[in-house]
């Protein structure tokens, strides 16, 4: 399963729409779309740069989400911080459903809202949306096991404490360990910085990978088309070629 991330509206409207279409054509199974947050608590410097750029021009993100929905036919999962929506959650979820969004992923759910996470998961599901749960190495084993069963589509497991900073972690041993706890599809992300990391993750039992920072870095260096070719390459790895 290839889950490709794009920051909504990055690098600009036209290129963003080209990117999401290209990522799907290149074989992405699911698109994860990041909404500009008030505080990118768990994002590394690369994704933060993309948010900063988007913040200079994007005012109506709902209409761009609608355009995204029209542009591609794979499931769309919104990545956004619950903190930003906690006071207006029912309306926001209803609107996402109307737009045709398939799921939502709150990276801060099990950290900043741990005492009420079940309430929020139920709320997401009650609006007909998939609740994709984000876990990480600092989530205790019994909790990973428990939430893996209620996470829709797949369980997201971020191997590093922040995106896009290649801190030294043992990807294979982390995933070998977490695989035994997860009763669901397991998608690994957050700092899979190179092909070797991806291969290790898959060999250790991951069902898929989530890629984000690498695309943004590639866009910064060589533009959108080059990021799309990367997606093609990742598809090849997943397909075993």
């Amino acid at each position, binding site marked *: 399963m290839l889950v490709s991330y794009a920051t909504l509206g990055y690098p600009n409207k036209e290129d963003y729409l080209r990117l999401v279409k290209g990522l799907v054509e290149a074989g992405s199974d699911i698109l994860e779309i990041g909404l500009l947050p*008030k*505080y*990118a*608590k*768990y994002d*590394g*410097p690369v994704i*933060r740069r993309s948010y900063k750029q988007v913040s200079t021009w994007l005012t109506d993100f709902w209409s761009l989400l609608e355009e995204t929905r029209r542009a591609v036919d794979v499931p769309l999962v919104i990545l956004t911080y619950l903190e930003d929506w906690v006071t207006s959650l029912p309306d926001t979820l209803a609107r996402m459903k109307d737009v045709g969004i398939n799921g939502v992923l709150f990276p801060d759910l*099990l*950290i*900043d809202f*741990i005492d009420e996470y079940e309430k929020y998961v139920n709320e997401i599901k009650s609006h007909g949306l998939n609740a994709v749960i984000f*876990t*990480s*190495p*600092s*989530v*205790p*084993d019994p*909790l990973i096991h428990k939430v893996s069963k209620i996470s829709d589509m797949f369980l997201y497991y971020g191997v*590093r*404490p*922040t995106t896009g*900073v*290649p*801190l*030294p*972690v*043992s990807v294979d*041993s*982390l995933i070998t*360990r977490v695989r035994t706890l997860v009763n669901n599809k397991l998608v690994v992300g957050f700092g899979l910085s190179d092909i070797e990391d991806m291969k290790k993750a898959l060999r250790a039992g991951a069902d898929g990978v989530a890629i984000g920072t690498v695309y943004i870095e590639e866009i910064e260096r060589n533009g959108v088309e080059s990021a799309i070719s990367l997606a093609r390459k990742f598809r090849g790895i997943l397909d075993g070629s």
Partner: protein
Amino acid sequence: MANSEEIIPSYWYNIIPDLPKPLPPPRDPPDAEFSRIDLLRKIMPSEVLRQQFTVERFVPIPKEVREAYINIGRPTPLVRARRLEEFLNTPAKIYFKYEGATPTGSHKINTALPQAYFSMKEGVDHLVTETGAGQWGTAVALSARMYGLNSTIFMVKVSYEQKPQRRTIMQLYGARVFASPTSHTEYGKKVLNENPNHPGSLGIAMSEAIEYALSNGYKYLVGSVLDVVVLHQSVIGLEAMKQLQELDEEPDVLVGCVGGGSNFGGFTFPFIGSKKGSKYIAVGSYEIPKFSKGAYNYDFPDSAGLLPLVKMITLGRDYVPPPIYSGGLRYHGAAPSLSMLIKEGIVDWREYNEKEIFEAAQIFLQTQGIVPAPESSHAIRAVIEEAREAKIKNEKKVIVFNLSGHGLLDLPNYESMMKRIGQD
């Protein structure tokens, strides 16, 4: 009976997978002009950083580090404090794990050795750190020397002045020692500009050490607070568990003092993780009231804000602690894992003032003969109170505490305390 070397574990214990809730991860501040998390890669040895973020419950201790532990006299003794029990006329049994029985006189060497070892393996030739009371700096100075590395220590100015012998030991081991705030770093210059007589704080010394390591391409060793330090210190608790098993004892109450939380966590976490014991007491200083007055918030571990934000019980990074004699307890925060366990009600806390800990130190040294470090005397005070309560309730409980260091280099402090408290 196991021979003494068999008491030393082959693995360190990591409590993260056994915590009741997810440990909030480190963060970069909003609108950060650079990533502090990324900065960790530049300042810390990479194996130390890998262990900081590991989730393995048991992390193998390299053979060479285990040998180094043996070389410094591990396992440290677990001693029954019979004379203290008699003095208190308590039905409780009291044991202490004596971490003062290492060459540097405290538990700090348990993490300095592996951090220096991993640095040496990576080809690093110069280590930098900060120190409050001097125990950590001493441990780094010796560990660096053992692996043929140079070391520079930023020592909090008030301790530098109060504890000249600590400075001397570090220098004898071959370290360069500066009184922080210094004019060797931009941050130190800024602090001195604002207040030329600043007594210093651990947070400031930490910021200076990090800046100095960065600007010279050296590696920074971390002495407390971060998970990797607590991980290495778990050698204390793992040994104590085995030693108690050999004695056929089941501990009820476990006690340790808290500066940043490494000796407390290292001692108690293996027990907490395996659900041995029913009460865990973290003891801080009344004068530095982080447990009673601190907030559970994201805060910087260092005053300059060079390290990533971590969620911890904290008095705020700008907090300037009063110059109490337990220099090791002057830190503004407590380790994230310990902070969570306190917030979840799994670990209890106490705070005692200097007079209370001075009395406890006197009782201990007059019954057991060991001069405890003023920091460790905080734990002793809690032990005495628990033993007295056991007497009132006639409970035969087993109290075990970590005597995290000896106080033979704190005699001038005790002298001052004697004079001052005598005048009260």
